[in-house]
């Protein structure tokens, strides 16, 4: 068991290619931390730095209390699961699992016990004699997980371990990894580009973009209080709606010609803006509903373009003064294309951002 600490870590490939830019992050002992972000954001590079597969250009990286900047991968007491499984194709499943232990001169009886145990946890007992090519994708990924488990390392590193699996298997394996983490309690750093994976698996999530860490927090914190426009748009599915509005003299905002009446914290933030200044408001599709004049609700007039029926709910694509709005509302609202509706969002669910800095004004 160990903590992992990034202390002003940089990874530069050249003067203007900075993959990881001043990363500061503390991962607690036993924590499941998900690094998430769009491709090319530096999340995998950050993980590979922890593994020792990339050297860091600047800063300090700790595993436990030890600075590991110059420690070889094999001496870092970590295990890594790769996106492509990276199994040893000419070895049986047993030998794949035992390889790392053999190299560390573990006693034979000990190897056998640990391999059997890991195989038991992952349901691989029947496949121990098989070669990887005789396994399905899901089984191969389990072998890759098993290879990490048998080593009993202090940190697991996982680099998009689910992205080569089909959708159904991915959901299954996701739960399996979560169970594994509950059972072993090993510190885990998990990289993914999929925000659903991040939300469902992470104790905490670190959102990265262009080498910069944008926000770290529990899934709820990120969902409820995104600190900037990128995190707000990245977390949550379907993505958050954004609209540019103008401040008025009072506490209200103008979306085109429509007036939005505010109160509470949102109203205070709006009132701080000079008249005519732009503001970016954000609201999640699932927080919208057809408004009928409730208190503490902002009402946005919109015309319905498309209705996607999902069973219990409907996905509404609507136009509000030139802004495209997506709303997820109960099916029994019976909205039809062409309808003029008022979409209401509760005031405490309304996000406001500075259009220049893209930082949240209410978080």
């Amino acid at each position, binding site marked *: 068991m160990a903590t992992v600490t990034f202390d002003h870590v940089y990874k530069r490939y050249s003067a203007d290619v900075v993959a990881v830019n001043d990363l500061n992050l503390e991962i607690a002992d036993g924590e499941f931390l998900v690094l998430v972000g769009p491709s090319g954001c530096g999340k995998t590079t950050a993980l590979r730095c922890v*593994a*020792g*597969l990339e050297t860091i250009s600047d800063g300090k990286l700790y595993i436990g209390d030890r600075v590991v900047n110059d420690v*070889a*991968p*094999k001496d870092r007491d*970590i*295990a*890594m699961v*790769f*996106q*492509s*499984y*990276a*199994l*040893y*194709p*000419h070895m049986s499943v047993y030998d794949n699992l035992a*390889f*790392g232990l053999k*190299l*560390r001169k573990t006693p034979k009886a000990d190897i056998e016990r640990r391999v059997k145990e890991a195989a038991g946890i992952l349901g691989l007992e029947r496949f121990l004699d098989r070669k990887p090519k005789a396994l399905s994708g899901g089984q191969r990924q389990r072998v890759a997980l098993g*290879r990490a488990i048998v*080593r009993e390392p202090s940190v697991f590193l996982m680099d998009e371990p689910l992205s080569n699996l089909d*959708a*159904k298997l*991915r*959901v299954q394996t*996701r739960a399996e990894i979560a169970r594994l983490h509950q059972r072993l309690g090993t510190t885990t750093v998990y990289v993914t580009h*999929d925000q*659903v*994976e991040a939300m*469902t698996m992470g104790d905490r999530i670190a959102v990265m973009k262009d080498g910069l860490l944008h926000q770290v927090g529990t899934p709820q914190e990120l969902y409820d209080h995104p600190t900037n426009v990128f995190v707000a748009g990245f977390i949550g*599915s379907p993505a958050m709606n954004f609209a540019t509005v103008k401040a008025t003299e009072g506490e209200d905002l103008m979306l085109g010609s429509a007036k939005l009446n505010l109160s509470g914290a949102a109203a205070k933030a709006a009132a701080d803006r000079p008249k005519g200044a732009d503001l970016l408001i954000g609201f999640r599709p699932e927080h919208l509903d057809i408004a009928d004049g409730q208190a503490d609700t902002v009402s946005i007039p919109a015309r319905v373009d498309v209705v996607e029926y*999902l069973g219990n709910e409907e996905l509404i694509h609507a136009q509000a003064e030139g802004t495209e709005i997506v709303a997820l509302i109960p099916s029994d609202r019976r909205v039809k294309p062409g309808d003029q509706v008022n979409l209401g969002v509760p005031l405490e669910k309304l996000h406001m951002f500075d259009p220049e800095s893209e930082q949240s004004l209410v978080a």
Partner: protein
Amino acid sequence: MTAPGPVVTQDYAASELEAQPRPQGVAQGNAFTRFIGRTPVHIAIIALCLIWLIPTVALLVSSFRESQAVAGSGWWTALTPPFEFTLSNYDRVLDTNNLGQSFVNSLFVSIPATIIPILVAAFAAYAFAWMEFPGRGLLFMLIVGLLVIPLQSALIPVLQLFVSVRIGDQTLNGTFLAIWLAHTGFGLPFAIYLLRNFFGALPREMFESAYIDGASPVTAFFRLALPTSVPALAALAIFQFMWVWNDLLIALVYLGGQQSIAPLTVTIANLVGSLGQNQQLLTAAAFISMALPLIVFFTLQRYFVRGILGGSVKG
């Protein structure tokens, strides 16, 4: 995308595909027309194979004919009655001309001259593929560049070198060591080139995973790179073995014509008198020398085919 939406769509699409009835008649018709359509290709391939085989068959037939018959009529006349075949050519070659010793000599030349360059090339190729060091690209280009240097242009300089090196009271020239070294040198550029490409196509994550598991580069080489490259190594072994086994030029230059150490090719070449007498013996001798490469090729040919694909296109 783990949202339930797409899953449903996918399953739906799959079941729709399965639900479509397979039109049996059409499928059969397709198979039939495909067969008809391919017939010209098959005929062309068979014709090419036959044309390719004719010289070998002619050689085989001739090796079983009397020398007067070979001199007096074409080999195809022997295929019609009366069948007048004889083993006398094989008899004479095997009996009188030191062939057994030469066969052993050939093996003594070929086996080390196959193993040494492949071993050296594998180390070099692994370093070129997976180890970072300054000048790696330039060095590799230099080695690939050596591929275009004709062997003949290096014969004399290397010979001079061998003559100048003394081991005890003998020069290096005319020893088996000399010919092993020569074959190693001439074989290395191609071997390194082929193996580097094969090693380079192995997945990087496999090695990284091994390093995390505790492997050193040497362990990774012996436990991962070599075992997963058996097809490429086998293909290379066949190439190199055939080349060395059939080589006359290098053997003549660096080993000389001494009977006690002459390999098969040199002995066979010496069968023919300076005026071309005993020419008929060549046919039988050629078949004897072909026997071993054929056995090697047929036992390893599945690696041969895979290895060529593996080295150049994809791992």
